[in-house]
């Protein structure tokens, strides 16, 4: 069992879209250094939960607490400010900027001296160094940091986006289908990055329809069905994909 502190707790979340109740009284807990898998059939409410946790959606009922403090987010920037970042399918990377420029977009560092302080001259080499060191720290192997993002593969882009989130101090990273539509090698890059972040104490919410991926990286799995959480189980050697699918569909 994970004895780390609870970093993210959602309690009694209900979210309705008109007549549809997308989430019905759902509670979740996430601890530091833990990967929580979220699974469920289409329309089960996973992405809605991501929206609530990342500040994109406001719940009708229920609370979100980060590091023990109850929060209500007006937008994703507010969630990011307290350390929750969601890496969406649309990765928010600018293709014509290079890796380092993307990592530091809107967080540029200014150079030393008068030019830096008064005239906002960037400290490009320092930013590149920091990105290189950051990737090294999390064991990410990527092309040189001056490579344009347009030249990167899907998995490499995922890795850049995920690492960027962590470099900027997010200790809770939410990934909605991070490995969808990726090749085998690219998927491996993303999954091994998830494992290394976990080792660094980052808490991760991992959503996927691929049972193999979920079983490999998740410590715990929450199963959603029709807006409710129907199971919350620790992953161990006996956990099988078939069992999970049974929970998802209601056959078990």
């Amino acid at each position, binding site marked *: 069992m994970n004895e780390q502190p609870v970093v993210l707790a959602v309690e009694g979340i209900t979210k309705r879209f008109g007549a549809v109740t997308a989430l019905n009284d759902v509670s979740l807990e996430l601890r530091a250094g833990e990967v929580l898998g979220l699974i469920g059939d289409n329309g089960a409410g996973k992405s809605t939960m991501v929206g609530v946790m990342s500040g994109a959606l406001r719940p009708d009922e229920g609370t979100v607490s980060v590091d023990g403090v109850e929060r209500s987010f007006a937008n994703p920037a507010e969630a990011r400010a307290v350390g929750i970042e969601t890496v969406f399918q649309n990765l928010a990377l600018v293709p*014509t900027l290079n890796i380092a420029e993307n990592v530091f977009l809107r967080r540029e560092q200014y150079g030393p001296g008068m*030019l830096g302080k008064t005239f906002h001259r960037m400290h490009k080499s320092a930013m590149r160094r920091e990105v290189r060191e950051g990737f090294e720290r999390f064991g990410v192997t990527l092309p040189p940091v001056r490579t344009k993002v347009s030249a990167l593969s899907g998995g490499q882009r995922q890795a850049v986006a995920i690492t960027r989130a962590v470099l900027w101090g997010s200790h809770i990273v939410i990934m909605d289908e991070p490995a969808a539509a*990726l090749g085998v090698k690219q998927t491996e890059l993303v999954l091994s990055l998830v494992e290394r972040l976990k080792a660094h104490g980052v808490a991760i919410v991992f959503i996927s*329809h691929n049972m193999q991926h979920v079983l490999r990286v998740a410590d715990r799995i929450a199963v959603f069905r029709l807006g409710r959480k129907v199971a919350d189980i620790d992953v161990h050697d006996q956990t099988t994909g078939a069992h999970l699918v049974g929970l998802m569909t209601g056959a078990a």
Partner: protein
Amino acid sequence: MAQAESAGRSWRKPRAPREPRSGGLRRLAALLANYQSGGLLIALLVMGAIFTSMSKNFLTHRNLTVILLQVSIVGLVAIPQAMLVLSGYVDLSVGSVAVLAVAMFGQMARVDHHSLALSIAIALAVGAGWGLMNGVLISYLEFSPIIVTLGGFAGARGVAETITHDVTQFGFGDKFAYLGNGTILSVPVPAVIFLGFFVVGAYIWYEMPLGRHMMSIGADKIAARSRGVSTKLIPCVLYVFSGIAAAAGGLILTSELDGASPSIGIGLELQVLTAVLLGGVAFAGGRGSLWGVLFGILFIGVLNNGLILLNIGPYVVNLAVGAVLVAAAGADAFYQRLERIPVAAAEPVAAEPEAST
């Protein structure tokens, strides 16, 4: 990767998702992208060498000064224009805003006998005001940049005509003549102004975060916004500066001619846009170099000057500029195509039961 914001800019072709490229072609594409301005510089030097060998009057201090003087106004207006195009916008109203500012200046200084300083200030303010209107309509209200500034192209000249009634004001005095005809350390004042603005522009483009922010807006506005880039304020401010630069260019030309002629600024927008695109700024935004724009400006200036020195008619100049521009478009299309070539040995895609969300 369909781009939702393209609705407001439907004149641009939607960007296809970029796939990784194979080794050799990929390197070639990167080379092209990174050294397009370098290629232009080489072409510029080669052309200079040819003109030098063909005319003893080309490579003289006097002639180089003339070239610099001739490109200053287009160059000045091209700097904010390059930033706009980089951000995915365009300003076609610059020529007409120049004439409007000049009409206002002529009216204030000669008809209403206001002071020179006040007249200049008002002329610049007119440029800024028109730019602000462009910026608010296009950036905040998301009107089409081409349509709004094409409207300004017609509208601003129309306003100018109602002010001047087609009368040219002249006789602005020696002080004002200095702006267009004076020299500082034997460099013409307009060239000093242009080079000063270029230095500031290059500093913004390459050394300040703003340069990257403009590029990110032009490349992927949604991504830029989600990172917190001011995707509305930045283009709006650029339109204001484009208007101010147009007004300043009009005033410099008025000073050179000592006449606030209603024909000032005709075709300026096309000359400016030609220089920007020749310099390798992608018309769709997101890519480009201000050094390339400088080389583009000089390229056109040297071509003009050299062909005139060799007594070759102006229609050849136009033809040559057109040909070079098409060649630049070809290089850009080639680059774009290389960008879209997928990896030769595609990796198998992992089996996903559902591609959802």
